């Protein structure tokens, strides 16, 4: 099966494809030059279909859809938009379509979108028309759950669908926390017990946390991993208390970062890319020496993977959607893109890294497609 890496950047979309021997990667694009591309995601139920979350600096946000593996794109007929506010009600407008998640495997054509300000939207026709998920967007606690935000507003992201039950959903808000719905999004409840929120006055607050990236393993859907602003966590349901698996990381490295990436078939294997979260939050590779870390035992131990990466003076930042794995078993590849416009490929699970593209615009997302 051919591999494509879709690269979403601040200035457009690009694709990277390897040659037959997998040694050299060919860059194509840009598509939508000048557009801000937050996410490009393939539909695993219909692999010819891809969705792209886009906007430009001055025009409103939208979603593009391809039904020919990214050769041509068509704009959604009804992009994600909040309902019209009633008289005297606070009026919300979608500023960014930030996150795309395909729906349940049995619900062909269903997709979810997360936006800034924090909003959840659903499409049932493959991404052509989007409707608000009122159970979250009109939830009486929504304003409190997403009160803090980031400098670019509060983002709703990391929407996860339980493969056993399409009504069982998780999502995350930066800043706000992790939330769960067991009724298809009609109601939501915080799920943050055990997570640190060092910036909050109440260390046991039920929400207000900053999950950077949440991931559910499709083959072990009771297993959740989370890279949080305040550490690296794992939760095994039906438990409700997150365990800080980042405690097993080397102390001089810490457990702060943005992405967490899961192995396609081994729920005990995951990769992270630690960044400097001290003082004013540089969010760069620690000491200027970039490295990924991999666990193969569910977070009990971590192994440094830096062969081929720069040995010093490399101050990389990798955003939450900018790291992924492929499905080339048993030698799964791992990839990340930097805000400096480089894409790195880690062969054999990150054992050896190689820069496969450079000089791109600021990279927001790296996703794998077949």
């Amino acid at each position, binding site marked *: 099966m051919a591999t494509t890496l879709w690269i979403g950047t601040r200035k457009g979309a690009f694709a990277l494809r390897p040659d037959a021997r997998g040694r050299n990667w060919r860059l194509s694009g840009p598509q939508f030059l*000048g557009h801000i591309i937050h996410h490009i995601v393939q539909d695993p139920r219909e692999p010819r279909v891809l969705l792209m979350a886009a906007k*430009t*600096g*001055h*025009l*409103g946000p*939208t979603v593009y859809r391809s039904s020919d593996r990214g050769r041509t794109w068509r*704009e*959604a*007929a009804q*992009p994600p*938009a*909040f*309902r*019209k*506010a009633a008289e005297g009600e606070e*009026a*919300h*407008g*979608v500023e960014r379509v930030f996150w795309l998640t395909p729906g349940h495997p049995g619900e062909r054509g269903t997709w979810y979108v997360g936006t800034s300000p924090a909003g959840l939207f659903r499409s049932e026709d493959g991404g052509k028309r989007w409707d608000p998920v009122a159970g979250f967007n009109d939830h009486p606690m929504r304003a409190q759950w997403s009160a803090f935000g980031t400098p670019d507003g509060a983002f709703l992201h990391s929407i996860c669908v339980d493969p056993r039950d399409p009504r069982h959903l998780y999502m995350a808000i930066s800043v706000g926390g992790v939330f769960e719905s067991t009724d298809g999004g009609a109601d939501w409840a915080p799920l943050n017990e055990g997570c640190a929120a060092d910036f909050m006055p109440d260390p046991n607050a039920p929400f207000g946390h900053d999950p950077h990236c949440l991931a559910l393993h499709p083959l072990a859907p009771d297993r959740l991993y989370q890279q949080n602003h305040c550490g690296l966590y794992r939760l095994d349901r039906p438990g409700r208390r997150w365990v800080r698996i980042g405690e097993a990381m080397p102390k001089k490295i810490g457990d702060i970062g943005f992405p967490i990436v899961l192995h396609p078939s081994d729920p005990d294997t995951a990769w992270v890319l630690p960044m400097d979260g001290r003082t004013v939050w540089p969010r760069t590779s620690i000491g200027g020496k970039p490295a990924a870390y991999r666990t193969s035992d569910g977070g009990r131990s971590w192994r440094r993977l830096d062969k081929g990466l720069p040995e010093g003076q490399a101050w990389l930042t990798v955003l939450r959607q900018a790291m992924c794995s492929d499905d080339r078993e048993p030698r799964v590849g791992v990839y990340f893109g930097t805000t400096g416009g480089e894409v790195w490929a880690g062969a054999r699970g990150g054992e050896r890294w190689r820069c496969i593209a450079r000089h791109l615009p600021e990279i927001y997302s790296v996703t794998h497609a077949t």
Partner: protein
Amino acid sequence: MSCTVHIPSPLRSYTAGAGSVGAEGATLGEVLTSLEQRFGGIRFRMIDEQDRIRPHIRLYVNLQEAPTLTQRVHDGDTIHIICALSGG
């Protein structure tokens, strides 16, 4: 009312490259609805779901900036859509 609408380059993907198009309406809001009917998707890029003009968009009727979509439009008026490009 018939008017002429000047389309900025970032929105010409909707008008097949046309830099100006004719439209109908007695208010700016009606003119934009008329544009939307012909060029599906163009309105939401300029106007949000609460009918607010987006922060980096300006609309002018006969060289006067229109603060809201209720601005009256008369036969023969000229409307300019301006995208306030800035930043790197």
